């Protein structure tokens, strides 16, 4: 028969600002096969999917479908060529039926009128064909669908739209075990129909369950491709890790002192039974996959989301958290992951951004001295080497790294006792990364307690004195600096039955 390769990407590269997300990756998806994509967070899997679905366009390299070179200028163009990415949370219109959701934009008509009966009959036929009869009804409203059913709607959209290449982006993260089973049956069904499936997941068990081939990515490059039947967990984990950034991490002698933060059995909507402590002069890293509950834990500790049970103590005194104000007053500070949305006043100056946390301390009878503000801003701009023409510069014009330094400066000005840094180097270029690592090291050496959340293993290993690994909202283990390796952390973070 003809060439089984339907989708081919050759040496695709993509850069976002200072970050080289993909540096020349090639892949081939064959009809009737499942190609699994694996890699750490930030390895480039999502970017690859976005190039496939036409959300972004590659800077270099080519994409071919059935041997024809194609350019996916828009998501629509990708769909026209038969490529469809099923995202984790598909867009579902809540107040219309499943049938209308599937055929949105191409509803059948009889004369000028919408043909509801015809539509329901058609969708019932589609459901029967792909084995979903009973799982989902055509007339069911979008809002009543479970996450698995939503994905089924998205898959139906793809199939009725004539998709021949379907990519799943971590499809099981929001599914129950039972739903996962039906998804696997569906994927098998799709391969029988001759569709090429691309499957992105962190979960080893699933990968071995569904994949024909496995492509491992690291740092935006492909490390290698394996036939699923000829490899094992250990080999894949070894392929995923192994970067060397140790030169970026300075390490001053640290004096570990009193306990600054102690969590006892903290349980929220997203995490449960979290207990650990962070001491003065110590950097503790929270490692784990995206979605392990680390960011949610940070927001609970800072008083942004409610703690259902358990307690937070600061310097041995229980902290009653009603809002972030209580946490800030007790000396805690959070530099959130989404710094543009959650930390910065993008249209205000560097000075206003730095001084936001200290205005209440600078005021006398509510009057704030501009001169004093400028003095503080200048001091921390110099100390953290924020590259800005003046302190009057609007923050939105700075680079990601300098924006992050501005956020750090805000909390240094406040002299916070404990800093929680959520993905402090996301979207930051290498030079600024090194600066930020140096700042963290210096703060720890000066006696601050620091909790770093990071999905980058080299960063975790380079910064931390202790590493706490989370998976699925729970603590999976704690490693000291000396015993920790990338393999050990990744095993705790990924493998379901790890010790």
């Amino acid at each position, binding site marked *: 028969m003809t060439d089984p390769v339907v989708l081919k990407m050759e040496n695709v590269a993509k850069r976002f600002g200072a970050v080289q997300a993909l540096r020349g990756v090639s892949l081939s998806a064959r009809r009737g096969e499942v190609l699994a994509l694996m890699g750490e967070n930030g390895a480039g899997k999502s970017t690859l999917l976005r190039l496939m679905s036409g959300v972004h366009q590659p800077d270099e390299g080519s994409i071919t479908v059935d041997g024809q070179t194609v350019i996916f200028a828009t998501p629509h163009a990708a769909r026209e060529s038969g490529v469809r990415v099923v995202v984790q949370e598909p867009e579902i219109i809540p107040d219309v039926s499943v049938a209308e959701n599937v055929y949105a934009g191409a509803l059948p008509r009889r004369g000028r009128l919408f043909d509801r009966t015809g539509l329901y009959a058609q969708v019932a036929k589609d459901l029967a064909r792909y084995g979903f009869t009973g799982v989902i009804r055509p007339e069911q409203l979008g809002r009543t669908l479970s996450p698995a059913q939503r994905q089924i709607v998205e898959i139906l959209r793809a199939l009725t739209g004539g998709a021949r290449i379907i990519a799943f982006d971590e499809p099981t993260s929001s599914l129950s075990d039972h739903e996962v089973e039906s998804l696997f049956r569906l994927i098998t069904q799709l391969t029988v129909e001759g569709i090429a499936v691309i499957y992105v997941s962190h979960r080893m068990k699933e990968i071995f369950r569904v994949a024909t081939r496995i492509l491992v990515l690291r740092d935006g490059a492909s490390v290698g491709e394996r036939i699923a039947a000829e490899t094992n967990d250990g080999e894949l984990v070894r392929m995923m890790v192994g970067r060397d950034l140790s030169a970026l991490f300075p390490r001053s002698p640290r004096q570990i002192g009193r306990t600054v933060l102690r969590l006892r059995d903290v349980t929220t909507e997203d995490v449960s039974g979290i207990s650990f402590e962070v001491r003065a002069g110590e950097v503790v890293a929270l490692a784990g996959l995206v979605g392990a509950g680390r960011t949610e834990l940070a927001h609970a500790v800072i008083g942004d989301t409610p703690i259902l049970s358990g307690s937070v103590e600061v310097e041995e005194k229980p902290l009653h958290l009603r809002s972030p104000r209580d946490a800030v007053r007790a000396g805690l500070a959070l530099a959130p992951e989404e710094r543009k949305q959650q930390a910065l006043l993008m249209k205000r100056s560097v000075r206003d951004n730095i001084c936001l946390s200290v*205005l209440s301390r600078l005021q006398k009878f509510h009057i704030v001295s501009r001169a004093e503000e400028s003095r503080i801003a200048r001091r921390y701009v110099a100390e953290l080497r924020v590259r800005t023409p003046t302190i009057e510069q609007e923050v939105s014009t700075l680079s990601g790294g300098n924006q992050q330094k501005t956020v750090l400066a805000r909390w240094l000005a406040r002299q916070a006792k404990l800093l929680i840094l959520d993905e402090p180097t996301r979207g930051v270029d290498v030079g600024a990364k090194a600066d930020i690592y140096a700042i963290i090291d210096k703060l720890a050496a000066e006696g601050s307690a620091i909790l770093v959340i990071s999905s980058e293993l080299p960063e975790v290993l380079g910064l931390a004195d202790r590493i706490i690994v989370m998976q699925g909202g729970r603590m999976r283990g704690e490693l000291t600096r000396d015993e920790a390796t990338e393999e050990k952390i990744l095993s705790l973070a990924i493998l379901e039955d790890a010790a």
Partner: protein
Amino acid sequence: MTATAAETAVSHPSTFRRALATIGVQNVSLLLALAALVAFIGVQNSNFFYASNIATIGTTVAIVGVLAVVQTVVMLLGGLDISVGSQAGLTSVVSAMVFMSTGSALAGIAAALVLGLCTGLLNGVVIIYGRVNAVIATLATFAAYRGVANLVSNGRAQGYTGMNHLFVFLARGDILGIPALIWILLLVALLVQLMLHFTDIGRNIYAVGGNATAARLAGIPLNRYIIGIYMLVGVVAALAGILLTARTGSGQPTSGSQGLELQSITAAALGGVSLQGGRGTIVGTILAVILLGVLENGLIILNVNSFWQDIAQGALLVIAVVIQQRRAGGRGVGLP
């Protein structure tokens, strides 16, 4: 030498730009629009330039002016207050009724101010603790406060304050030849400007409007700020109500206060206050208030049918927001 010449050539536009940035592009365009409008009206009818006419413009804009100033503050926070006119009407009636029953102008004024504080508090509480969108909450109280004003007054003008020295002074008195109403507007604008510029409260207002999540995570008590500002609006709306009573000589449940919400929001938007919050100045709002006052006065002087005024107001509000959106450069889908 050539290098120096080149530098000066480059530095000139930058000095110009810096001057422009200090005054604000928005304010410069308002001043230009104002100049053009004044020139146009003045050419048609030179009576426009009489001192008495200028004073008339000043006193007419005083009431809407104080409301526009506090509307600016609410909008900086990212909110909106549609009930300002109704609050002014309600407090106008109450100030006149308390004055009539006690005979004391001060008692009437105090009662109105306290009532304003309460109506503002109610707005804030509904928004914060009811989690009701500010537009909807104040649209509801816009209707409710007007209803209460009509209920207590039976829908009629109340009392007569034309014999009381204090009320007469507020309406027609002057200090150094400048009407008291204008002094009051300037005083309110100055106090709010000082608050916005020199206090931590003002700076935090800009922060809350610019990025509420960031402000919250930085430890700023959002709820206190929002409720506090709605109370400030209530008090200033009561001040507007008192001035309304003084100007008309009696407590007015609806006439004179109708449309103040539209005018104050138009002035603030025209003055460059972002509807998303976080951006805008009192100076811009005051310039816009003057522009609107001159426009209204000009239409009267030029004998234009007064219905046109409402059309002009509405058109200006839309134009102001369209310009804002264009300058913000955002490209969205669906409803803004």
